[in-house]
C-alpha cells in the first residue's frame, strides 16, 4: 500500500514536472528563431535603405522610424533591451530573399501585404503598422491638380520591384493612358531623376512621397496629388513555418497599438500595474500569464511600452513631429475615427 502511494506520487510528480516543463519551454523549444535570437543576443531586422519616418539612420548610425520601432519592440520583449537590434538595410529587390535565406528574422521595411507575397514565396505577414496608399507627386507649376490631368506620354519615375509598378499599370490602363515607366533600384536615384526633370511624376506610397519630398532640391515646388490609387497596408513580415516567432512579432506590434488604445504610455506604464481595468493590468503584465504562451516572461509587454512606447508615441516621434505626415489619417485608432483595430490581448 505504502509502495503504491509512493509510486503514485512519483508518477504525479513526474507528470507535474513534465507538464510545467512543457508549458514553460514548449514555445521556446518549437521556435528555432526565438532560440537563435536569445542565443545571439540581438534581433536581426531588415529595414529600408533610408526612408525618413519609417526606417532611417542618422549620421551616427542610430536607426529611427515606425518600422524600426517594431523590431525594437520585439527586442524589448524577447531580450529585455530595445537597443539589441542589428539592422540590415535592404533594397526592395533584396528584402524577401534576405528573409527567406535566414539573413534576417524580421522584415520591417514598409512592405505591402498582398496575397501572392503572403501565400506564395514562404513569407508570413503578421499585421499592419501603417495603412498607406499609392499617390503621385508632381511639380506645382505643372498645372496638374488631379490624376485626371495626366495625358498620354507621361513619364513616371518609381522604385523597382514594388507593388507600385503593378498599381501604376492598373491605374494608367484603366484611364487608357500610355505612359513611360522609369524604374530605379534605389530610392535616391528615383529622387535624383525626378528632380532633374527626367519624369513628369514620381509615384510611390504617399508616406514615401511625403518623406522623399524633403530630399528634393526645392521641396516647396512639388506637391502630392490628393488621389490615392491603391491600398497599401504596410507591415512586418517573418519567415513561414515558425508560428511562435510569428506570434511574438504580431503581438509585439499589437501591444503597442493596444497600449495607445488604453492610454498606457512609456511614462505611465509602471503606475498602470495598479489600474482598475483588468485589460490594462493584462497589458502591463500585472494580471494573467500571457507571456508564457509566447515562450516569454510576463513583463514582455511592459518592457515594450516602457522602452519603445505605444503606437501613438512612435507615430508622433517619427512621422508627425518630423513633419512628414502630421495628420494620422487612417492610422488613427478605431475609437478615434481611424482603422487601427487589433485583437484583444487576453
Amino acid at each position, binding site marked *: 500500500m505504502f509502495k503504491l502511494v509512493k509510486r503514485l506520487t512519483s508518477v504525479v510528480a513526474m507528470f507535474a514536472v513534465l507538464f510545467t516543463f512543457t508549458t514553460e519551454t514548449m514555445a521556446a523549444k518549437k521556435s528555432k528563431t526565438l532560440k537563435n535570437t536569445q542565443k545571439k543576443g540581438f534581433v536581426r531586422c531588415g529595414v529600408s535603405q533610408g526612408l525618413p519616418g519609417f526606417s532611417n539612420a542618422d549620421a551616427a548610425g542610430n536607426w529611427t522610424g515606425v518600422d524600426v520601432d517594431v523590431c525594437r519592440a520585439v527586442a524589448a520583449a524577447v531580450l529585455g533591451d530595445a537597443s539589441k537590434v542589428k539592422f540590415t538595410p535592404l533594397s526592395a*529587390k533584396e528584402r524577401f530573399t534576405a528573409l527567406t535565406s535566414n539573413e534576417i528574422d524580421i522584415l520591417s521595411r514598409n512592405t505591402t501585404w498582398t496575397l501572392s507575397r503572403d501565400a506564395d514565396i514562404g513569407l508570413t505577414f503578421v499585421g499592419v503598422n501603417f495603412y498607406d496608399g499609392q499617390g503621385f507627386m508632381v511639380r506645382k507649376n505643372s498645372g496638374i491638380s488631379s490624376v485626371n490631368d495626366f495625358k498620354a506620354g507621361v513619364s513616371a519615375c518609381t522604385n523597382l520591384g514594388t507593388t507600385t509598378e503593378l498599381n501604376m499599370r492598373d491605374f494608367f490602363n484603366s484611364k487608357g493612358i500610355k505612359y513611360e515607366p522609369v524604374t530605379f533600384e534605389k530610392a535616391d536615384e528615383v529622387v535624383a531623376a525626378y528632380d532633374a526633370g527626367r519624369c513628369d511624376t514620381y509615384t510611390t506610397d504617399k508616406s514615401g512621397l511625403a518623406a522623399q519630398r524633403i530630399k528634393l532640391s526645392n521641396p516647396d515646388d512639388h506637391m502630392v496629388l490628393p488621389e490615392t490609387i491603391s491600398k497599401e497596408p504596410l507591415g512586418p513580415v517573418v519567415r513561414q513555418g515558425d508560428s511562435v516567432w510569428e506570434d511574438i512579432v504580431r503581438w509585439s506590434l499589437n501591444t503597442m497599438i493596444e497600449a495607445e488604445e488604453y492610454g498606457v504610455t512609456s511614462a505611465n506604464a509602471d503606475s498602470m500595474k495598479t489600474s482598475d481595468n483588468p485589460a490594462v493590468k493584462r497589458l502591463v503584465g500585472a494580471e494573467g500569464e500571457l507571456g508564457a504562451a509566447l515562450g516569454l516572461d510576463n513583463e514582455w509587454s511592459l518592457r515594450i511600452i516602457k522602452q519603445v512606447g505605444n503606437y501613438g508615441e512612435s507615430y508622433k516621434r517619427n512621422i508627425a513631429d518630423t513633419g512628414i505626415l502630421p495628420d494620422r489619417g487612417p492610422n488613427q485608432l478605431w475609437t478615434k475615427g481611424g482603422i487601427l483595430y487589433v485583437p484583444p490581448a487576453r
Partner: protein
Amino acid sequence: MNFKKILPQLLTLVVVIIVFGFFSYNAQVNMENRGITFGYGFLTQESSFDVQFSLIEYDGSHSYFRAYLVGLLNTILVSVIGIIFATIIGVIVGIARLSSNYLIERTAAIYVEFFRNIPLLLQIFFWYFAALRALPLPEKAEPMFGVFFLTIKGFFVPAFVWNNLDIFIYSVIAAIVAIVFVRLYAKKKQENQGIQTPVLLISIGLLIILPLLSFLLGGVDASIQIPVIEQLSKTSFTYKGGLKLPPELISLALALSLYTATFIAECVRAGVQGVSKGQKEAAASIGLTPNQVLKLVVMPQALRIIIPPTTNQYLNLTKNSSLAAAIAYPDLVLVFAGTALMQTGRAIEIVSITMLTYLTLSITISIFMNWYNKKIAIKEK
C-alpha cells in the same frame, strides 16, 4: 588503362558532384521547409508590369517569358551598340597612341589612363546624371538638322513607317546572299585564271538594286515620321511620333564604350607594335605603297595579336551592361532578375535563367571571335 592518369579525373568529378549535390539538396530542403515551390510554370503567366523601352511589342498583359525577351533584347542592343563604338574609338585611340605627333599621342594616353582607372559604375552614374543635368527639357531643345531632338527625356529621331517591311528585308537578305556567291566565284576565277573581278562595285550595286526593286515591284513603301512636340501639362512636354531612344540607353552605351575602348586601344597598340619593323621595311622594299603595307602586311599580322584579348573586352562589355539596373535602363537584370523576380518571388528559377542567358551570350561571342581568329591565323600548309 593507366589508373594513375584516371584517378585525379575521377576525384575531380566526385568533388564536383558532391559540391553540386550538396548545394541543390540544401536548397531543396530549405525551400521545402519554407513552403516555397519550385517550377518554371510562372513564365507563361501574365506579367502585369510595363517596361519603358522595348524592341518588341510588349505590355503587362504579355507573359513573363515575353518580359524576359524584352530584357534580353535590350541587353543585346546596348551590348552591340557598345561593342561597335568601343571598337571604333578603341582602334582610333590605339593608333593615335602610336602617332609621332606628341600632342595626339599624349591626349590618347591621358584618355586611356583616365577612363580605365575609374570604376565603371561611377562612370555610368556620371554620364547619366551629367546627361540629366546638361540636357535641355523637351520644350527647350534645339533641333539638330531640324529633325533630331536631344532632350532630358530621350533622343527623339525620325522614324521610318514601312509598308511590307518583310519584303524589303527579304530583298536585303537576297542581296547579301548574292554578294557571298559573287565573292566565292570571283575568288575561284582569280585562282584559276588570274582575272580580278570588281567585287566591291558589284556588291554595292547588288545592295542598291535589289532593295530598290522591292520598292518598285514589291509594293514596299516607306515614309518618314518626324517627332513633333506635344504638351502634357502647363510645364511638361514630350515628343510624339518618330523613334525615342531613352537617355538611360544613351548614357549606358556611352559609358560602356568609353570604358571598354581604353582596353581595346591598348590591345590595338600592342598588336601593331608586335609586328616587327623588318616586316614593314621588307614590304616597302618590294614596292608596296604605304597603304598596301598597312593593309596587306601589318594589319593581318597585328590582328592575330589583337583579336584574342579584344574578345575578352567584348565579353566584359556584355557582362558589364548588367550595371544598367542602376540607371533604370530596362536590361535583362532590371526587367527579369529585378521586377519579374520581385513580382513572382522565384529567385532560384529566375537567377538560374539569367545566369544561363549571360553564359550563352558570352559563349556565342567567344565562338564567333574564335572562328574569326582561326580565319585570320597563320595557315600552315
